[in-house]
């Protein structure tokens, strides 16, 4: 077989998606360019969840917590650029607390927005995985965490704007210079490519192989001398960093952040993207995120609740008829069994 034939069909999908995203601003459709910019941020978030769920088999039902940490840190930094923001002043905060003053400079905010969720995920992973909490328990705990984080954000009104969130944020900037829409778009696009390349490299490495081994049969990996807890914790931290990066971009790209973006709702939305697109290939994550968001944008205004209903039904249909998602239906060279059977073995 030629080398050409060995490239999975899915890679062509990646290529096509990136080509389309790269060329889209040339159409001059400002509104949709802005929208796609936001969806590209979601793409990074989807990749980060795929690393965790698709490759290591850890279904995080509270992934938006990590996204939200990055997002809120960036939003706070942006709104505190010129002194105490209005929503804080309303609650009688007269001086920026030291931790907030420290993240006002842009590089500090970016760094904090990536490192804090990474550290949080690392610590939580250290705590959970080393006591053999895994499988569905991990999902249950992360779901509860999403609920608690959402409540926490809503309760800290003087620092988070409570239920209304933090709005009126300036757009993307780089080294203190505000970017135009096109510049901002390509900055995010460049980051998407970087994150994609990073994830591809990581999952193709020995580390990625071990992760897939853990997903399929953790006990067997232990017999081979791999400490699964260590690997799970590491991938959780890496995934946390990427989710944080997505959050950091989301705050300026979206112009606001609210508790809805950090709780159960957004966490489960990402789970739906991956379930529909397919897990463990990165391609499926991207495809699902784009498809659900683009369709959602087109349909939700007209059909409202019916769109959500359709999404729920689509999720059910995927679980029953295409357990590997849309990309699972694509031919994959070197696959030993049909996608349906492979999914059946995974528990």
């Amino acid at each position: 077989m030629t080398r050409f034939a060995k490239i999975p069909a899915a890679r062509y999908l990646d290529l096509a998606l990136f080509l389309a995203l790269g060329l889209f601003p040339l159409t001059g459709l400002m509104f949709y360019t802005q929208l796609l910019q936001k969806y590209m941020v979601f793409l990074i978030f989807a990749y980060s969840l795929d690393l965790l769920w698709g490759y290591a088999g850890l279904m995080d039902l509270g992934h938006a917590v990590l996204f939200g940490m990055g997002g809120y840190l960036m939003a706070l930094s942006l709104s505190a650029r010129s002194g105490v923001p209005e929503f804080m002043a309303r609650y009688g905060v007269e001086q920026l607390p030291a931790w907030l003053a420290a993240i006002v400079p842009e590089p500090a905010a970016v760094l904090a927005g990536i490192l804090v969720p990474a550290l949080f995920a690392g610590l939580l992973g250290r705590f959970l995985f080393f006591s053999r909490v895994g499988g569905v328990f991990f999902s249950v705990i992360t779901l509860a965490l999403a609920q608690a984080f959402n409540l926490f954000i809503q309760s800290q009104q003087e620092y988070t704007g409570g239920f209304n969130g933090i709005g009126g944020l300036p757009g993307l900037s780089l080294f203190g210079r505000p970017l135009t829409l096109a510049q901002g778009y390509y900055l995010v696009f460049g980051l998407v490519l970087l994150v994609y390349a990073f994830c591809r490299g990581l999952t193709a490495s020995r580390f990625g192989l071990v992760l897939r081994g853990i997903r399929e049969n953790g006990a067997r990996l232990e017999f081979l001398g791999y400490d699964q807890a260590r690997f799970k914790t590491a991938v959780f931290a890496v995934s946390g960093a990427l989710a944080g990066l997505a959050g950091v971009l989301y705050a300026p790209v979206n112009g606001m952040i609210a508790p809805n973006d950090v709780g159960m709702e957004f966490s489960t939305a990402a789970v739906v993207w991956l379930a529909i697109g397919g897990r463990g290939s990165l391609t499926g994550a991207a495809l699902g995120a784009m498809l659900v968001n683009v369709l959602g944008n087109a349909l939700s205004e007209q059909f409202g609740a019916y769109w959500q209903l359709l999404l729920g039904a689509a999720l059910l249909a995927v679980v029953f008829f295409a357990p590997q998602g849309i990309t699972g239906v694509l031919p994959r060279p070197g696959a030993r069994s049909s996608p349906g059977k492979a999914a059946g073995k995974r528990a």
Partner: protein
Amino acid sequence: MESFAALLLNGLNSSALILIAALGMVIICGLMNVINLAHGELIMIGAYTAYGVTQSLGYPFFAALPAAFAVTAAAGAAMERLVVKRLAGRPAETMLATFGVSVVLQQLANVAFGAQSKYVAIPIDGKLAFGKVVVPFYNLFTILFVAAVTAGTVLLLHRTKFGKRVRAITQNREMAECLGIDSSRVDTFTFAFGSGLAGLAGALAAPVKTVSPFMGGPYLVNSFMTSVVGGVASFFGTSAGSLLVGESTALIGGVSNDVLANILVLLLIIAAIRFRPEGLFAKERR
């Protein structure tokens, strides 16, 4: 001291609601090893049934309780037959599918009843007062009713043939099947029964909480935490777990605020799982 007693009684009331919400989940999880992410929506169905029976049809609240049980049990049976059974032995897929069901149920309620909250009148007026400690009669009713339902469930599982089958399958499914137990039928009945309990929880909560399509989330999380704390092996564990969750939330909430209480209890539970993954009250693993 008096305010402490009031907090304690308040906590007992929320413990009762948590217990009946979690009980169904624990039975289902113990028997079938299924995490049902649509459990909160079953509670929602129960609450809407109570709303429909009392507000739309005008029957008394006490007719709403059995109605809620029946409607949710039917919904649960359908869900087990159509979704859960087909994914047997694949916990991750089951979880995803039940999540799909929860989205569908939420949106169906949203389409049918609208997103606004509905209210159910409190069926029993009046309150009991000991000095500063005031207990509404309805809270007392809730506590007693939940105690009775829990006792009934224990009797069902430990004193009837059906219960014996359920316990046999919980212990060893293949062996039970070898002995001629139709595990598929027992699964459906148990799922229906557990769902019915969730419906009762929804109906009981309806007069004191709001009824809306998206009310299920917090109940789901609370039920999860209770079953995680108590373990899925025993009723004692579930009862103790719900008491722990309800009382500690009420007590911490009394001295600080509800949000902080919720977060602290969650963190304590995560810590508890760290050291006792089978639940605090579980017996040693076989």
